[in-house]
């Protein structure tokens, strides 16, 4: 039972990342009708916002310690971060909490990147076939990741969570199991809560604000909303920025889980597209539901008992194919996905 709860927690956590990226993808597809293959790159840029703030906070003054030697035998250069020398413990605290603080840092950056991407490139492809959109956004993703690689190199960069949230939580005690039976990393739990807040916030924004109402109306019938004298294009551009900000924040918070590297967006991109297709193209609820569903299934498929069972029925490596297998089954039985709407991507 404890193993099942652990994998359930894992699945919710994986699903959080899938759902956040898929939510942004669906927002863009639902509003602008664009299949954005650069969305994974936005997730990656978000993670590198955390790396950048961490590096900015770590800018240091250099002093020479003649008593110690460096690798060439020269006197050792000792680096002391400016934040520490100026603000003491408060400065050290800021450095420790650089990842959560990066959320504030990333929002304006991601909004700006999203705005520039949409106005500068993607708007020219609205009336082009989806294949063209995929090609240009995929190309853009490669350009963005190469730019990041040129600045930060190809190696993963360690970006730790604050000390307070580095450890693990003992869910076993809370759930009535033995101590240490269900241990889960604190930061992953924070990530799940964060994803729930962001997803809830996006839905509330669309559901309970006038802006959101207009956007939803535009998603349902763009032409009619335009005929009412509303500048729907401007609102959709803002939604693109919002989707970029969601992907960026998801990336920021993911940085302590996987040390950021320039390729991390691509690692999520294909899975997130499967999530969107399974959820139903253009359906925000479907994207979130499919994200959690596939995250949980992927986690359970990694259990040794499950792998052994599928191995015994001549289906090895179920953990590697489960998402695609489920996608095939769902699309065979519900061709529009779990919550897909009629007429979307059917032209």
């Amino acid at each position, binding site marked *: 039972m*404890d*193993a099942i709860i*652990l*994998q359930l927690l*894992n*699945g919710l*956590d*994986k699903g959080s990342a899938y759902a956040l990226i898929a939510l942004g993808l669906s927002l863009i597809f639902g509003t602008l009708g664009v299949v954005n293959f650069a969305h994974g790159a936005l997730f990656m840029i978000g993670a590198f916002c955390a790396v950048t703030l961490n590096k900015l906070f770590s800018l240091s003054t250099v002093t020479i310690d003649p008593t*110690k030697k*460096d*690798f*060439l035998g020269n006197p*050792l250069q000792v680096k002391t971060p400016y934040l520490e020398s100026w603000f003491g413990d408060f400065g050290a605290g800021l450095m420790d909490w650089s990842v959560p603080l990066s959320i504030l840092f990333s929002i304006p950056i991601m909004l700006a990147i999203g705005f520039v991407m949409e106005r500068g490139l993607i708007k020219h492809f609205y009336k082009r076939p989806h294949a063209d959109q995929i090609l240009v956004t995929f190309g853009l993703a490669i350009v963005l990741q190469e730019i990041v*690689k040129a600045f930060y*190199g*190809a*190696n*993963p*960069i*360690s970006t*730790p969570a604050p000390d307070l949230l*580095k*450890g*693990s939580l003992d869910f076993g005690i809370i759930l009535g199991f033995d101590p*240490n*039976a269900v*241990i*889960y*990393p604190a*930061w*992953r739990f924070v990530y799940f809560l964060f994803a729930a807040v962001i997803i809830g916030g996006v839905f509330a924004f669309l559901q309970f604000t006038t802006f959101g109402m207009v956007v939803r109306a535009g998603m349902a019938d763009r032409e009619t909303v335009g005929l009412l004298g509303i500048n729907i294009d401007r609102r959709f551009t803002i939604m693109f920025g919002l989707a970029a900000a969601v992907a960026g924040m998801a990336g920021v918070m993911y940085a*302590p*889980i*996987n*040390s950021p*590297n320039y*390729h*991390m967006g691509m*690692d999520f991109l294909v899975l997130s597209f499967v999530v969107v297709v399974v959820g139903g193209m253009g359906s925000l609820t479907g994207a979130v539901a499919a994200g959690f569903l596939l995250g949980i299934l*992927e*986690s359970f498929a*990694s*259990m*040794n008992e499950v792998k052994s069972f599928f191995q015994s029925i001549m289906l090895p*490596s179920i*953990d*590697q194919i489960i998402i695609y297998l489920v996608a095939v089954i769902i699309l065979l039985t519900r061709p529009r996905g779990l919550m897909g709407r009629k007429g979307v991507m059917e032209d």
Partner: protein
Amino acid sequence: MKLYSVSRRGLLKGGAVLGAGLAAPTIFTSRASAFTNEPTGSTVTLGFNVPQTGPYAEEGKDELRAQQLAVEHLNGEGDGGMLNTFSSKALQGNGILGKKVTFVTGDTQTKSDAARASAKSMIEKDGAIMINGGSSSGVAIAVQGLCQDAGVIFMAGLTHSNDTTGKDKKANGFRHFFNAYMSGAALAPVLKNAYGADRRAYHLTADYTWGWTQQESIVAATEGIGWETVETVLTPLASTDFSSYIAPVLNSGADVLVLNHYGGNMVNSLTQAVQFGLRDKTVNGKQFEIVVPLYSELMAKGAGENIKGVLGSMNWNWQLDDAGTKAFVQSFGKKYGFPPSNSAQTCYAQVILYADAVARAGSFNPCAVVEALEGGDSSLPGVSSAANKGFLFDGLGNGPTLYRSADHQCFKDVLVVKGRENPTTEYDTLEIVEKTPAAQVWYEPDHPMFAGGNLGTCNPGA
């Protein structure tokens, strides 16, 4: 009058022959030279095939830096580096056999097909006479096979799978880097001393040739000291989130997690294992421990503070205090501003060893080079074995080293290292725990983990 006639069948036959001729790679067609890419001018071209893009691009860059440094030293430029400490004195700093050394580079992308394509291009188009570099066993085995067929020498870079000099060994291929068996043999006694003989290990293993052979080697070595293997789980190479593989470890009864992962896989799996609180856990009355059998400085940096106290093994480390290492670190450090990695050192050593073999053989002919690298009857001190024959050298950073003629594998001391608890600089991530003598990591060429291959005979190509 009909002077000639062309039948449809004849035309097809002729076309087929002409097409096959044009399509055949030039390396497989006959030529006047005695061997492939025989240097005829005043220069000789080496091919450096390293990952310049993809996840191991930083490691590839470091290899390339070392290879460029080696070329400078061969041509008599710079401070000479390890040429000053190398036991063989055949190289004079005037290139190789008086020919100035030039080089071309290829990008392996850490993909076997891309690596073969770039090696093939360097051989066919650029006239490379030797291929060196790489950061993956899959790539090394693929390129080694290509070089064997093409008739050029392959001096492998970072490749740790037993198969490279085991079932996939080739006469034209040589490996200076250590292998998974040696990691197991070096680590096992240290693990026993540090954690005791009564331990239960759980393995997470990258699902490809290197992971399989490392798992096999570490399982055999740890079971040899009394450890029990609780579970071995293969993880997809493309995995980035290992949480669903780590979660089952928690309640498996294991008290050691062995991560048979390298590169980004290692950084992520180690980071996530630490986040799961494994290192704070007590199981079976013992502190839970994590072991990373193959370390790299560049990846240790990526894992940050998570590597503190974690044991592993390395081929070489810049902190060694022998004369060769000091000369190389000075030379590399002054040129680039930071210490070299162990993949840089192995590539540097391989370039020097190739050049030295050519100089000793007095010929670029691959078969003469193979004979020089196999070295005759020199043997490694302290090892009693009929297979202890080959080319013995010293001064390249690893102490006395034997290029064994039986399988073209180097035998030398292996380092057991540990993540440093209190690093003083960003390069000071690992500390050397033990220098395991070569005799302790020795194995016979017909050892079951290396069985099934055939070195064959050297191929000069032409």
